[in-house]
């Protein structure tokens, strides 16, 4: 298998207070912080949230380079939306484009909104990266089902993750098989032959996945599966975890207060 496999949790075996943090408390407290972060309305509040998140990342000793790489993945999406925002909010125009038929205004309210939006997303992404990078994948799934997330969801994630690689290898093999018989995609994807071949590929992939699913189910039944995956309960919440969780939540609440206190807004923007 010649695919470079993606490791979601390659740094999860480092040592740091954040790695030793009970995953369930970690998930809940970071989730609360995340919800707070995306509701913030002032640059100061968001700055504080971003600062807190970065501090936690430093504490967790994750390699900054890799985190930036992950963040870079979402930036195009964020930018695409962020670039529209300045135009669609009404308010004081800062700059106008005349496009003949109509005029586009960049408003200062829109610009603020777009910057806030950008910061919110970055902050949320950093928090998610923090949790997923410091928790082994299977522990993360375990914790989710401990947190009473219905098994159907955790199973869905687990199986998607597990069979993504199998499916990916399968696509690759099929592609190679077509290429070795001299299939060349036409210049345009809309060419009949190309479309037909790709359609066939998708169809075969669908059937293969379906059959694979059936065999996986048979093999699970063979080992006594009756509709529920049992787990050993071996995680324990210690006082230490509890305190750390409370600290994170309190930080979040403080940030929220700063944000709503009103004194942050004029300070930064006027």
């Amino acid at each position, binding site marked *: 298998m010649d695919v470079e496999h993606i490791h979601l949790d390659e740094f999860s075996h480092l040592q740091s207070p954040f790695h030793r943090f009970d995953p369930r408390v970690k998930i809940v407290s970071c989730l609360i912080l995340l919800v707070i972060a995306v509701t913030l309305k002032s640059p100061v509040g968001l700055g504080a949230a971003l600062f807190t998140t970065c501090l936690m990342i430093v504490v967790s000793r994750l390699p900054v380079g890799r985190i930036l790489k992950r963040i870079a993945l979402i930036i195009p999406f964020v930018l695409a939306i962020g670039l529209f925002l300045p135009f669609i909010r009404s308010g004081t125009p800062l700059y106008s484009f005349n496009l003949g038929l109509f005029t586009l205004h960049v408003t200062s309210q829109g610009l603020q909104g777009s910057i806030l939006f950008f910061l919110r997303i970055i902050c949320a992404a950093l928090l998610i990266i923090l949790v997923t990078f410091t928790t082994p*994948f299977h522990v993360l799934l375990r914790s989710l089902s401990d947190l009473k997330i219905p098994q159907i969801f955790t199973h869905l994630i*687990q199986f998607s*993750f597990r*069979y993504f690689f199998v499916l990916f290898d399968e696509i690759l093999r099929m592609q190679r098989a077509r290429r070795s018989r001299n299939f060349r995609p036409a210049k345009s994807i809309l060419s009949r032959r190309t479309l037909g071949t790709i359609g066939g590929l998708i169809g075969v992939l669908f059937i293969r996945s379906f059959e694979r699913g059936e065999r996986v189910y*048979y093999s699970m039944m063979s080992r006594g599966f009756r509709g529920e995956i049992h787990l050993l309960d071996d995680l324990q919440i210690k006082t230490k975890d509890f305190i750390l969780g409370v600290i994170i939540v309190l930080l979040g609440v403080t940030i929220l207060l700063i944000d709503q206190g009103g004194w942050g807004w004029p300070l930064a923007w006027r």
Partner: protein
Amino acid sequence: MAACLEIEDLYFRYHDGTEALKGVSLSIQKEEKVAILGPNGAGKSTLLLHLNGIHLPQQGVVCVGGKEINPDNEHQVRSKVGLVFQDPDDQVFSPTVWDDVAFGPLNMNLERAEIEKRVADALRAVRMWEFRSRAPHHLSYGQKKRVAIAGVLAMDPEIIVLDEPTAFLDPSGQEDLFEILENLHREGRTVIIATHDVDMAAMWATSIIILKEGQILAQGTTELLVKEDLVEAAGLRFPLISQVFEEAAVSSGQPLPRTVKEGKKLLFKLTKH
């Protein structure tokens, strides 16, 4: 010796109308090493899925330990008969190796200490203990295969069934597998494999079953593997050793050797005078 597995007049038809099994009857004794051979599409995999109640007979009877498999006892049967699938990707689904091997024992509602012991024993038996916290999708094919076998071993079944266990394994992987199978047999388990590997069947099995087009062509010892008409009808070939010694054995009136060991003996006999 008692028959631990008996099948009588078994028919099975897939929903698309393919008749995969057409009146299969066979009986397997305790502690036997059985190889089921037959061309592609003969119905081997379909037959194996009947051995632990994944497919229930549409017609006919499958008995394990003297009891007929039916919808009421299919779950008990599955802890008695362990089935290792051909493609380990079909079987090894958990996020870590340890979790996957523990899946079966957890379904059996065993005590925690017992589960841990079984998982450790099974992983050591296939020499995968060092990999216990790895994710299966980052393992090699042979390693996944071992995990799949460990997952079945941990359920401590009396009968172990493997579908094409040597397929896609490298020579040393095949050697290891052979050793694992021998150990299982030494522990007093019945081992059944479906295979295309005639040489392995000749060397390893105590009993041979030849299947073709959903019917049993023959059941007997490894002698079946050098019966010319049978081998031809089943789309098989002679074991390599038998091919090498074919003329020599015939002209000297000796029985045709089937394994390397027998071949060496014959060679020694022939060269002494």
